[in-house]
Structure formats: C-alpha cells, structure tokens
C-alpha cells in the first residue's frame, strides 16, 4: 500500500495546477447558478410581485458580480444558431477560441440527438483541428427532473474503435426555445496529431439529474451515443510551430520559451529549464510552482484579447502549457504574461510572436 501511495504521489507531481484552478472556478460558477436557481424555485411560492422584487434585488446583482472571462465583444457578436451558448462564454476560458472559430466560419453544425427514457442529448456543433476537438451540446431531462449536468462525456474513433478519452467540460442551465430547462455544455479533448485524424467520432454522454427544485436524489441517464462524421476541412489546417527562444529569470532560475505551436483551437507553449537533469526534485518543483502564466495577449487587426491557460504539465525538459486560441484571427503579436510570485501586480512579459 505504501508503494502504491508513493506511486500515486509521483503521478500527481505531473498534474497541472491550471486545470485544478479551473475546476474550482467552474465549481464556483455552477454553485452560484444552482443557488440562484434554488432561490428562484422557492420564490415561485410567493406572490408574483414578491418574485419580481426578489429577482431584481438578489438575482440580478449577483449576475452583475460574476467575473467575466469572456471579452465584452463576444456578447455583441452574432453567434447565429449557437447564440444560446454565449451563456457558457461568460465563465468559460475556451470562449475566445469558440468566438474566433464562429467568426471565421470554422464550425460544423451537427444537430444530431440521442434519447433514452426521457433524457436527451443533442450535439449542436463541433470544431476541430489536428490537436483538439471541441463540442457544443445541449441536454434535457424528463418530467420532474432538473439537469444537474453532464456527468461523463467520452469519445471513440468509429473506424478503429480507439478511445480518444474523456473531455474537459463546462456548462450551465438555461431556458430553451419552448421555455423548458436546457443544459448548455461545451466539451473539449486534446488529440494526438501523430495519429491519423479521426474521420468519424462517437460521443458517449451520461446526463445527471436531480428531483425538480432539489439538490437530492441524483439520477443518471443510460449512455447516450451520437456519431459525428468530421468535416475534412478540419484536418487541412496544419499546426504552425515557432521557436521564440526567449528567456527570463524566475527567482534566479533561467526559463526559456523554446517552442510555441499554433493551431485554430489551441496554443501550446513549451518551457525548458536550464540544465533540467541537474535540478533536484525540490528545486524542480519550486520552478514548476512559480511558473504561472496569466495568459497570452493576442493582438489581431480587429481586437486584442487575452487567451487564458487551460492546462499544464511537466515534461522532461521543463513544463508545457495549453492556451485557448484565436489563431484564425491572424494575430500580429502574441505576448505572454506570467505572474511574478510574491511581487504584487508585476508581470513578466515575453514576446512569442
């Protein structure tokens, strides 16, 4: 057991703090939304006027306080049939990627559904490049049930039966066209571009629901599967690789941004440490811990946006971070901003393009 525990700790060392921070942030956003929903359900028992006062006093200000990750321009852009998904953009760090893809018509509309025992999932749209797949989907539940979320979403390549893994997710409840409650979700998954690009994928969902108006009795749907042939245009765009070789010091340790990979849905940056093999584990972990990017400031013709870090992991030579992308907007400059730990308000900025 002790050796198993030790192995588990080693596995954890390569785990990305950005993903953990995002998980906490998403949980908080979900909590805020659910709390608002519970408050709304309670208030239906009151008089209509009381409801109006209640929502205007409590609900609206809390919406105003939500820290928006998406830039305000997203709210003023027409997302066409995907307009309802802007609800996720308010707190989803993938929002700039989706905005850029929609604006450049780099989206495949799908609108395919699967339904079992009152639970229904619809894949509305998909975006892909050789490094990543990104889905927008909606979920509904049967009578007397509220969406609690999509508890699992995994992908398989149809022709080979190869599992592509589970997705990262973001989502929240909204109101559908006929007034029913609908879960609007986004799932994304990294692809290995050394393997053939999948021609057709099967997305396998499981929806979680709770009794209407309660946070009790979580129930799960059967697995709901939707097959999607991917538009060949997605494999046409090849990853562009830059070698900035820009270095900076983190508390005396030299760190170099050695490689940047650019594709429509993802920017991957590789950091290398000075003589990584000579570093003891304690020093190595200290550098990993201090290397914390805020994001990449991307300046394109039309606007400047911040592309946030989505995940990160340790590598043999150092560390790599994955960011959202607006590469389709053809940015003229990309500047990375890293937090300088223990130096309030100061950033390290590095030009990577």
């Amino acid at each position: 057991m002790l050796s198993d525990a030790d192995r588990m700790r080693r596995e954890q060392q390569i785990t990305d703090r950005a993903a953990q921070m995002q998980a906490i942030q998403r949980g908080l956003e979900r909590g805020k939304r659910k709390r608002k929903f519970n408050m709304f359900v309670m208030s239906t028992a009151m008089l209509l006027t009381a409801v109006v006062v209640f929502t205007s006093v409590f609900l609206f200000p809390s919406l105003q306080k939500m820290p928006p990750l998406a830039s305000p321009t997203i709210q003023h852009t027409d997302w066409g049939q995907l307009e309802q998904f802007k609800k996720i953009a308010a707190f989803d760090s993938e929002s700039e990627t989706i905005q850029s893809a929609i604006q450049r018509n780099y989206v495949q509309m799908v609108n395919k559904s699967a339904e079992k025992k009152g639970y229904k999932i619809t894949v509305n749209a998909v975006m892909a490049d050789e490094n990543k797949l990104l889905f927008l989907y909606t979920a509904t539940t049967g009578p007397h049930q509220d969406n609690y979320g999509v508890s699992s979403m995994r992908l398989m390549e149809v022709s080979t039966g190869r599992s592509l893994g589970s997705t990262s997710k973001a989502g929240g409840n909204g109101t559908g066209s006929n007034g029913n409650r609908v879960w609007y979700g986004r799932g994304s998954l990294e692809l290995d571009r050394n393997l053939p690009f999948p021609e057709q994928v099967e997305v396998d969902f499981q929806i979680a629901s709770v009794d209407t108006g309660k946070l009790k009795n979580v129930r799960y749907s059967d697995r709901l599967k939707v097959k999607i042939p991917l538009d060949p245009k997605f494999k046409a765009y090849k990853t562009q690789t830059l070698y900035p070789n820009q270095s900076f010091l983190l508390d005396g340790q030299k760190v170099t941004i050695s490689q940047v990979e650019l594709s429509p849905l993802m920017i991957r940056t590789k950091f290398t440490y000075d003589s990584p093999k000579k570093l003891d584990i304690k020093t190595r972990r200290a550098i990993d811990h201090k290397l914390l990017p805020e994001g990449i400031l991307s300046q394109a013709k039309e606007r400047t946006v911040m592309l946030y870090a989505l995940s990160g992991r340790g590598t043999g030579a150092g560390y790599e971070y994955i960011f959202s992308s607006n590469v389709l907007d053809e940015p003229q400059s990309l500047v990375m901003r890293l937090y300088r730990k223990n130096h309030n308000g100061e950033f390290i900025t590095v030009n990577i393009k």
Partner: protein
Amino acid sequence: MTITRVEMKRVTAAHFRDEADFYETILVYREQLYGIAYSYLRNRNDALEALQEMTCRAWIKRKTLKDQKAFKSWIIRILIYVCIDEQRRRKRSVLLSDHQLEEPVTHISHSKMEMLSVLEHVKPKYRHVLLLKYYNDMTLTDIAKVLNKPEGTVKTWQHKGLQQLRAVMKDWGDWSHE
C-alpha cells in the same frame, strides 16, 4: 487540523464576504484536495470533476457551516462524499463493449490495479482512514475532524482497516498462487 496564520485570517474573515474570498480560500487547499480526490478515484479527469463538484456544493451550503475554523475539514468531508457518489456511479455504469476493452481508456499498471481492488474489499469507513492517512499523509487528529469522530475511534478504524487489508492481501496471495 494544522492551519497557518494567513489561512486562518482568510477563513475567519467574516463568512466569505464574496466569492473571491471563497475562491481564494479553496485555492489555499487546492493541492491537498486534488490529492484526496485522486487517491479515491485514481483518474485525473474524475479528480478534477470531483474538485469542481465539491466547490459547487460547498458554495451552495456555505452558510450551514457554523464554525469557520472547521472550513478545511468541512470541504474535505464534502469532497469525500462527492468521491463516494462517483464510485457508486462507476459501479452502476454499463460494462464496456469488447472492442473498448481492447483499448482501455486509462492504462493502469498491474500492481496499481491490484491495490485498488484490494482496497475495494476493505470496509468503507476503514478505507477512508487508510486513504487519508497513508495516501494523503493526514494525521489521525485531522482525520478525526474530517470524519467527525473521536480520535480513538479513528485509531481503532485504522488498525481494523490494516487487519482487513492484510487478510485480503493474504487471500489474494493464496489465490494467485493456485
């Protein structure tokens, strides 16, 4: 439960004035929380999901926490419940089809798989103590606070858990040599 002065200041600062306070306080314990979720679920994505779900539940129920100094034990307790829910969901999940079995979603080493199966056979309340103590380096005092039980009880559960673990491992050893 050990708590630094900075953490104490954050936690006792007037019932989380806003979500930023709440978010920052959870961030303080981020690594430990992730470690606990990982020890229960042994899968990166599921551990991150559990972290997300715990934050969601904790935010909704934050006003039910009477003693702010117990915040850390409280969120760990929520996280354990989330992990238990996920483990139950896994048991209910439909078996994978043959072609999926040929390409497992995650590659788990034989010894890790063996240990996971052995721990599955230990009584749940004992398993909590073993996971928190041996996989997450928590003290018995801290575990007692999380599980809301006297320290003596937790100590007993630890010993009984180890006894069960040894018995199960012995059975496994006998079986594998047949």
